[in-house]
């Protein structure tokens, strides 16, 4: 039995948990229907970029939903969580009405519970492993909604509790990039007692949480509160700082930094390299979303412009494609169309995102792939030529491979095209580190267990290692890197330099 499962067991046998378990028969628990998330009506929400679609649960809804959980002997849900949150504990705390305690439990494991409760693909993780889903073919406990509830409750209560941190050990470490992997890393390292600085190239902290995910899905104010918590714990943030450029790794070592976590992300947009892709009106989803989310280009007092379209095509079927296409609708597009080369079933976006997009009137043009963009007289994109596709044999990813239907080409009129076909690792940081072992895809190679790179004092995680994944996987990497960097530094500096 591992230390972790022992801990889960011990917690489960706590008096209050046993009493709570026995207070309601399982039969009654099973009979409760899964809670429905309250959403703002589609016609209402598309009027605003900042109106959050999901409104969250009310206290009684949350308690009722939490009481569905049977507090299993072997909680399989935790196996599905990349940061190993003690899920049954916080769920039962909600059932018991101890909402603030539930938030504390979450923060033991996750630096960003209010974020994860909103953007994690729970249906593929904890909720997929829920007993209801696994053994009873019933809808799983809404763990994601409950996580969000606890985090929101704490934030709105004004009684935010800052997690306990060890006494400072005087050892300086740095995180490069301020996205989810770095924040999660920083949260754990500060708890262990290190002096942690997070370096960010942009003028805002948060990485993809700020420039990428739109406010209707993740309000910036929610991210800011989580950042404020990390600051209160003692994490230092340096904005406008590109490690390797503004100062080199050697400069930072001279300043006393003993180890580095590279979480610089996959901020290099992919294009398809087809004719017309550099026309005005064709841009990456990174550009489009950055202009709107980070630079507030849709607001009248912002100096940054963004190109608007009446007929907007978004190429791709991932979460970013959904974010971009839904943004275009909110910015006033008459037609907003997803163009995806496979069918709806293979779409990598979260089901909830696809559902929300459909409700908002987004058109889905599946089994179609752009082959060329055509310009109007002024040089702006006016049409996209699409190759119709059909599904063939499954490919390496297990999804059926799209195959072109010879000669089946259609043209549609567009005035804005957003390319959201994925990102590659950003070479800016790795390029400044001679001797760092990279894969041929440009990702940093690390030991999967320890997240340590070929240079012993450099650890890495998130998209710079994975090449494009999710917030929560990046956070899991950050946690693992923190744990192993902690071991590495304790080994190396057995007698810390004191307070």
């Amino acid at each position: 039995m591992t230390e972790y499962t022992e801990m889960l067991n011990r917690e489960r046998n706590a008096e209050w948990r046993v009493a709570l378990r026995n207070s309601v028969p399982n039969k009654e628990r099973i009979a409760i229907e899964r809670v429905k998330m309250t959403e703002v009506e589609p016609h209402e929400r598309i009027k605003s970029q900042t109106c959050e679609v999901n409104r969250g649960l009310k206290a009684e809804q949350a308690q009722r939903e939490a009481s569905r959980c049977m507090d299993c002997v072997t909680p399989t849900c935790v196996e599905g969580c990349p940061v190993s949150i003690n899920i049954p504990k916080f769920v039962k705390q909600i059932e018991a009405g101890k909402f603030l305690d539930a938030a504390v439990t979450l923060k033991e494991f996750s630096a960003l519970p209010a974020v994860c409760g909103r953007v994690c693909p729970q249906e593929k993780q904890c909720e997929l492993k829920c007993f209801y889903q696994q053994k009873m073919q019933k809808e799983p406990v809404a763990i994601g909604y409950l996580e969000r509830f606890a985090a929101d409750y704490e934030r709105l209560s004004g009684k935010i509790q800052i997690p306990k941190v060890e006494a400072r050990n005087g050892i300086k470490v740095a995180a490069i990039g301020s996205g989810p992997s770095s924040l999660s890393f920083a949260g754990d390292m500060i708890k262990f007692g290190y002096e942690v600085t997070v370096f960010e190239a942009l003028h805002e902290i948060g990485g993809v949480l700020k420039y990428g995910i739109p406010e209707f899905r993740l309000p910036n104010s929610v991210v800011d509160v989580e950042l404020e918590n990390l600051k209160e714990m003692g994490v230092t943030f340096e904005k406008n700082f590109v490690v390797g450029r503004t100062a080199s790794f050697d400069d930072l070592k001279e300043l006393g930094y003993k180890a580095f976590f590279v979480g610089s992300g996959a901020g290099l947009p992919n294009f398809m390299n087809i004719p017309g892709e550099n026309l005005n009106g064709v841009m990456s989803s990174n550009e489009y979303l950055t202009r709107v989310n980070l630079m507030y280009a849709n607001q009248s007092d912002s100096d940054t412009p963004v190109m608007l379209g009446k007929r907007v095509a978004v190429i791709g079927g991932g979460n970013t494609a959904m974010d971009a296409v839904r943004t275009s609708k909110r910015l006033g597009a008459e037609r907003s169309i997803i163009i995806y080369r496979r069918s709806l079933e293979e779409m990598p976006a979260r089901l909830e995102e696809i559902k929300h997009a459909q409700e908002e009137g987004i058109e889905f043009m599946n089994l179609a792939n752009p082959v060329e963009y055509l310009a109007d007289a002024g040089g702006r994109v006016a049409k996209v030529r699409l190759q119709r596709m059909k599904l063939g044999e499954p490919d390496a990813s297990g999804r059926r491979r799209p195959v072109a239907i010879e000669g089946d080409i259609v043209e549609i009129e567009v005035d804005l095209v957003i390319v959201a076909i994925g990102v590659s690792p950003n070479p800016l940081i790795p390029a400044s580190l001679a001797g760092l072992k990279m894969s041929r895809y440009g990702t940093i190679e690390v030991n999967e267990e320890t997240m340590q790179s070929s240079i012993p004092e450099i650890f890495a995680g998130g998209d710079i290692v994975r090449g494009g994944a999710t917030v929560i996987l990046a956070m899991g990497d950050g946690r693992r890197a923190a744990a192993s960097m902690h071991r590495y530094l304790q080994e190396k500096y057995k007698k810390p330099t004191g307070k």
Partner: protein
Amino acid sequence: MRSGFFVRKIKLIQRLICMNKIVEKYKLSENVCKFIVEAPMIAKSRKPGNFVILRVGDKGERIPLTIVDSDIEKGTITLIVQNVGASSRKLCQLGAGEFITDMVGPLGKATHIYKAGTILALGGGVGVAPLFPIVKAFKEAGNRVITILAARNKDLVILENEMRQWSDEVIVMTDDGSSGRKGLVTEGAEEVIKREKVDECVAIGPAIMMKFCALLTKKYDVPTQVSLNTIMVDGTGMCGACRVTVNGETKFTCIDGPEFNAHQIDFDELLQRMRAYKNEEDQARNKK
């Protein structure tokens, strides 16, 4: 917790005091301002050809500017900006003692400086500013440097004295003949190329000027670098707004450039892309 909060605030204030402070400001011409800005780390790490991205105000736009010069001892960098739009006007309105809200750098690849022999440096308008550090570096590397400064009229010629200090010869050319010789930069360049062997040419200025410089030097087979001032947002490879076609391939100006082989650039596409936000820019300029 409160004490931690105050320590943080003090740290923050200390940082604000020493970061991005404008220590000197000069007016080089009606619409061109020169700033000496405190940025010790950038001053130390920058190389010729590098740029910074800066922002003025909380809702400010991120704008790229080439680092013209630096003083490591004083911890300052020199920036030159032409008041051409809403954002550059905001910057030009700042005075000595004020702060630039955000500034990050040095970004972009550094110029490849080596001993080539004779360098012909062509600067058009405010493009003379980014040309300056390159001229200086080539001169320091032991090259013969001939510099042509071109502008519409006398008032728009900038950095003439500085350029004379770092060039073997400076030719000033204006469209109206109000200073130096009357004519276009390409006319002066052609004379020099015909007159003596030029090993490398560097041209920086408006895209249309660089296009014609590239056409000229191609004719005479003189290797030519240009530095592009494309539209950018983040400046770190994240957005791709700065895409340019070089030798048939799409490159990002911010991380693959900003300097490219002039003979391989698709200038027509570049010119088109520079106009992407023309309407918005016009509106912003006329708003205030």
